[in-house]
């Protein structure tokens, strides 16, 4: 896109625009060809005035931008079909404007009134021709279960039960057919219970009456959805309840325009759909970056101090604890948390670690940037550190200027708006569609656990007086193996990827490793490490070969995840002991320096080796095995399962 002047005067002073000026701005910027800025202004307009009229304006300008930019429009395309039993047309612009705010260009197909059954059963229907990414089945109880809804008092108990079962079978058939004809996601509205049941309070005295049977249908809907990949339930009954049935409904619009939802709640319907559309379109955030002062606690730690900041179980600190709980829930869904705060590191860490009111602690954060650097820069670094794209970040900050600065510098970040009242912070996070997940993959959860374990180790280390105490506390277990078919790919990968703790940096392919393993004088070991915080997996490799009285270390490397935990000593000690057992007198090895392997520079000297020679490429070190006292540290529980490596490679290498 053409414009690249992020700090024009109008960009630097957010908040001065009233919505009608913003409209003029957008049109002016589009006319100038400044499409990026037009797009940002349009998003700002929608944030400030998310109303029906604004939605019409926003969608018409998104269409204009698409016409002008074509494939260069920086939005994710997504096609949604809505099958319905009521008027949804006025919701569509709201939905498309809301989607635009999440970076999605939403195309919507609306099915005819009450033709949803035919649409799903007929493989040639306009629904399938539209080729949607997702389909919403927005059917209300009056249409899906008319006998239970309208004439319930007429029904005998058995007839009522049968009616409920017929409804469930209908859903089952429709959803089954849909799955045969389409791979699109399907979001099925649950049925709402009547706000005034036919039998009044009597209705609630049995599960077999109106409300109970509708609950039964909803339970069955969940069971059906669980049986199909990509079928989800939207709890419409709970949505109506959350906003209050009497406010949600507008009987006049229902009777005159088949629109059951009051004008003020149409946006809430659109936002509920967005909670499915955002994760389905891949626009979810993976990391939430939070500010500290006046966001995670009330007050400014650098000025108010530990005793002055407000966070705890009583108001006003309770508002911040509610936010903490929302953050912890995200973290349990596999969303990483990170801190970005302008603060003195010591002040902030003291509060995070020691304030009794804090429910979130340093161990919950996968990355931290506590400094006085500009936040956009910190966010870039956090994305890099956590190895995610900038568009995977969400940002939570009470300060509108920080939010605007991040929006201007990094428009792809999901910036969450906070009002002035901290009591609303938790729901701002909970209601953000970017954090919705429709499934929890084991990778998601493992990733969080891995970062958490790493953080816990770092946190624990600080609590110990000596390194040795810390190592004992870690309860490390190492497993030493000779190379096998199972470990060969990982061993080759480590020789190719490891640059820091790598004494010779010799890169080997799988066939090369397999070839070495066939040689009787070559010995290839790998080491796997676990500790009280988690499993590191296979993290170290040593390759050595015997030659006369000496055993020479060809390769010795360790993944940076476990450097400095004495695992390297355990691996080296095993090399020494096994060489001595084979009758060798010397263990020798080169250190070949590179730009990156400084962490391994002093390894041999620290383990009792003597320098024998130095040349242009590096230094050769030797250890007298007859007098060596090199042993595996006693705080590492070492399990050795070494077989003769000859023949262990059954496939004979994959060359």
């Amino acid at each position, binding site marked *: 896109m053409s414009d690249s002047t992020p700090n024009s005067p109008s960009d630097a002073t957010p908040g001065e625009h009233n919505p*009608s000026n913003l409209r003029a701005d957008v049109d002016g910027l589009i006319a100038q060809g400044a499409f990026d800025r037009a797009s940002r202004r349009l998003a700002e307009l929608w944030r400030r005035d998310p109303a029906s*009229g604004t939605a019409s304006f926003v969608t018409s300008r998104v269409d204009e931008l698409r016409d002008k930019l074509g494939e260069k429009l920086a939005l994710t395309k997504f096609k949604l079909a809505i099958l319905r039993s009521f*008027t949804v*047309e*006025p919701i569509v612009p709201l939905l498309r404007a809301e989607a635009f705010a999440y970076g999605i260009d939403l195309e919507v197909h609306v099915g005819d009134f009450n033709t949803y059954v035919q649409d799903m059963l007929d493989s040639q229907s306009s629904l399938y021709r539209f080729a949607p990414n997702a389909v919403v089945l927005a059917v209300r109880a009056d249409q899906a279960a008319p006998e239970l809804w309208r004439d319930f008092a007429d029904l005998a108990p058995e007839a009522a039960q049968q009616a409920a079962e017929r409804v469930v079978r209908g859903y089952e058939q429709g959803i089954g057919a849909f799955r045969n004809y389409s791979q699109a996601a399907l979001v099925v509205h649950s049925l709402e219970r009547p706000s005034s049941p036919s039998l009044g309070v009597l209705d609630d005295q049995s599960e077999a009456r109106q409300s109970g049977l509708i609950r039964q249908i909803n339970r069955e809907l969940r069971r059906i959805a669980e049986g199909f990949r990509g079928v989800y339930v939207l709890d419409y009954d709970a949505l109506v309840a959350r906003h209050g049935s009497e406010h949600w409904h507008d009987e006049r*619009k229902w009777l005159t325009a088949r629109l059951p939802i009051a*004008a003020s709640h*149409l946006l809430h319907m659109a936002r509920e759909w967005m909670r499915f559309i955002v994760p389905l379109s891949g626009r979810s955030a993976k990391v939430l970056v939070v500010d500290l002062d006046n966001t995670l606690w009330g007050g400014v730690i650098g000025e108010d101090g530990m005793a002055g900041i407000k966070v705890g179980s009583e108001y006003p600190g309770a508002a911040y604890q509610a936010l903490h709980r929302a953050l912890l829930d995200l973290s349990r869904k596999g969303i990483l948390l990170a801190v970005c705060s302008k603060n003195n590191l010591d002040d902030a860490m003291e509060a995070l670690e020691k304030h009794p009111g804090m429910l979130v602690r340093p161990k919950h954060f996968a990355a931290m940037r506590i400094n006085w650097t500009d936040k956009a820069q910190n966010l870039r670094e956090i994305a890099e550190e956590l190895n995610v794209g900038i568009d995977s970040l969400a940002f939570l900050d009470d300060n509108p200027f920080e939010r605007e600065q991040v929006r201007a510098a990094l428009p792809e970040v999901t910036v969450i708006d906070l009002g002035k009242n901290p009591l609303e912070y938790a729901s701002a996070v909970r209601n953000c569609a970017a954090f919705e997940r429709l499934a929890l993959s084991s990778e998601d959860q493992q990733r969080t656990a891995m970062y958490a374990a790493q953080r816990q180790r770092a946190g624990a280390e600080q609590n110990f007086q000596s390194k040795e105490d810390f190592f004992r506390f870690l309860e490390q277990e190492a497993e030493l193996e000779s190379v096998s078919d199972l470990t060969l790919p990982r061993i080759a990968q480590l020789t190719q990827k490891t640059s820091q703790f790598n004494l010779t940096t010799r890169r080997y392919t799988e066939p090369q490793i397999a070839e070495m393993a066939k040689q009787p004088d070559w010995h290839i070991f790998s080491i796997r490490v676990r500790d009280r915080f988690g499993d590191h997996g296979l993290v170290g490799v040593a390759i050595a070969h015997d030659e006369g009285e000496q055993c020479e270390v060809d390769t010795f490397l360790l993944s940076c995840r476990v450097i400095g935990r004495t695992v390297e000593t355990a691996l080296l000690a095993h090399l020494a002991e096994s060489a001595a057992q084979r009758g060798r007198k010397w263990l020798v090895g080169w250190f070949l320096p590179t730009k990156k392997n400084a962490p391994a520079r002093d390894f041999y000297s620290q383990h009792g080796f003597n320098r024998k020679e130095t040349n242009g490429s590096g230094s050769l070190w030797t250890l007298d095995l007859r007098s060596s006292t090199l042993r595996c540290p006693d705080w590492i529980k070492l399990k050795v399962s070494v077989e003769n490596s000859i023949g262990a490679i059954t496939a004979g290498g994959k060359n």
Partner: protein
Amino acid sequence: MTASTFEQVRNIASDIFAIPADRITAESSPETIENWDSMQHLNLVLAVEEKFGVQLDPEDIEQMKNIGAVATLVEKLQSAAR
């Protein structure tokens, strides 16, 4: 009808019917605004209800024959609510 109510209604109509606000007068109606069909009429009703916090009865909606009438109706409903 006051200028401010009329102006706000006109802005809503400008958004809904996708025409510049300065081309909308109190007399603008389905006859003069091409986009003003039954669905856009519903959208106009909803946007007015949302903006002014009022609820329109079916009889009210029938009276919304032009933009001026919409503004007058809004003011009537607002004063009735006070």
